[in-house]
């Protein structure tokens, strides 16, 4: 949809699917999935070189996408800010997926630390895309802090549970004017389509692709689902009715066999 770009911090993007590289263990599989996804943004993490086989950064560039470093594994604003500074130096980008986790079992964000880190990073010149809960008030706080987008979760990271509270995502949509990107919880294509139908501007998927039996095929499916959901969202769904409403008019119906119509 070249006439319907996604604009984040003044940057025009054709794809509304962001790909997370999390969960990929083979570079060739990742590259195939990236190509099939059409994604122009790929998240990466920073880890000690011994734990990080090289080549991912180059693979993302070869695929024509830009790197979106994250602060995965950070549990405080201070730690997240330090990681962000390292990421900016490593990848020569000020864009950042900000994650400040509050609990290692649920991996839910720590809202207080998240807003604190967002303010600090925006002041330091970062383009901040925060991973957050599906809370419209917090979404507005993050927009007020200067975030370039807001990324509410559909369900816990890696759970594949889809969008547990569609109403909350719709409320987040109403709450902010910056791009809303559904992050975390996507399990399959229908989840991504639903996110777009609820008014999200984009979807970020990692595990849904990397742990699918066929990551390349799932990446292609999510691409189609995001496009379909976007078009459907703009087309306007019909209202939900309690009873059936015949699409064929009764007027002019022939009188046959004395049929009753209860």
């Amino acid at each position, binding site marked *: 949809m070249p006439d319907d770009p996604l604009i984040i911090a003044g940057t025009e993007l054709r794809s509304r699917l962001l790909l997370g590289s999390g969960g990929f263990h083979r570079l060739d599989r990742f590259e195939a999935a990236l190509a099939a996804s059409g994604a122009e943004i790929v998240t990466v993490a*920073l*880890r000690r*070189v011994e734990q*990080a086989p090289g080549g991912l950064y180059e693979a993302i560039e070869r695929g024509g996408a830009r790197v979106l470093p994250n602060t*995965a594994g950070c549990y405080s604003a201070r730690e997240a800010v330090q990681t962000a500074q*390292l990421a900016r130096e*490593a990848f020569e980008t000020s864009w950042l997926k900000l994650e400040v986790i509050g609990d290692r079992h649920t991996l839910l964000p720590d809202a207080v630390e998240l807003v604190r880190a967002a303010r600090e990073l925006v002041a330091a010149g970062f383009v901040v895309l925060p991973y957050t809960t599906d809370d419209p008030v917090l979404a507005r706080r993050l927009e007020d802090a200067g975030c370039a987008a807001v990324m509410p979760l559909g369900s816990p990271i890696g759970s594949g549970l889809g969008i547990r509270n569609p109403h909350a995502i719709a409320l987040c949509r109403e709450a902010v004017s910056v791009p809303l990107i559904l992050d975390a919880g996507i399990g399959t294509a229908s989840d991504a389509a639903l996110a777009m139908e609820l008014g999200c501007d984009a979807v970020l998927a990692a595990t849904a692709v990397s742990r699918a039996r066929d990551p390349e095929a799932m990446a292609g499916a999510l691409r189609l689902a995001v496009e379909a959901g976007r078009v459907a969202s703009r087309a306007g769904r019909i209202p939900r009715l309690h009873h059936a409403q015949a699409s064929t008019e009764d007027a002019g119906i022939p009188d046959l066999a004395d049929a009753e119509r209860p």
Partner: protein
Amino acid sequence: MRVIVNGREHDLATDATVRDAVAAAGAGDEERGVAVALDGTVVRRADWDGTRLHEAARLEVLRATAGG
């Protein structure tokens, strides 16, 4: 001089710089996508040669990995 690189002790020359620590960690000399923190503070790539290490310096040498 003993320094800690990514949690492991290394014995480096007394005039060692951040670039030497990057090599000790196993990252390529010209490898892109690598970042270094010396005692918790980012050292810009342009300063790797000019930044001397000190006894018991703590370094983190990082690169991109799958995540998020």
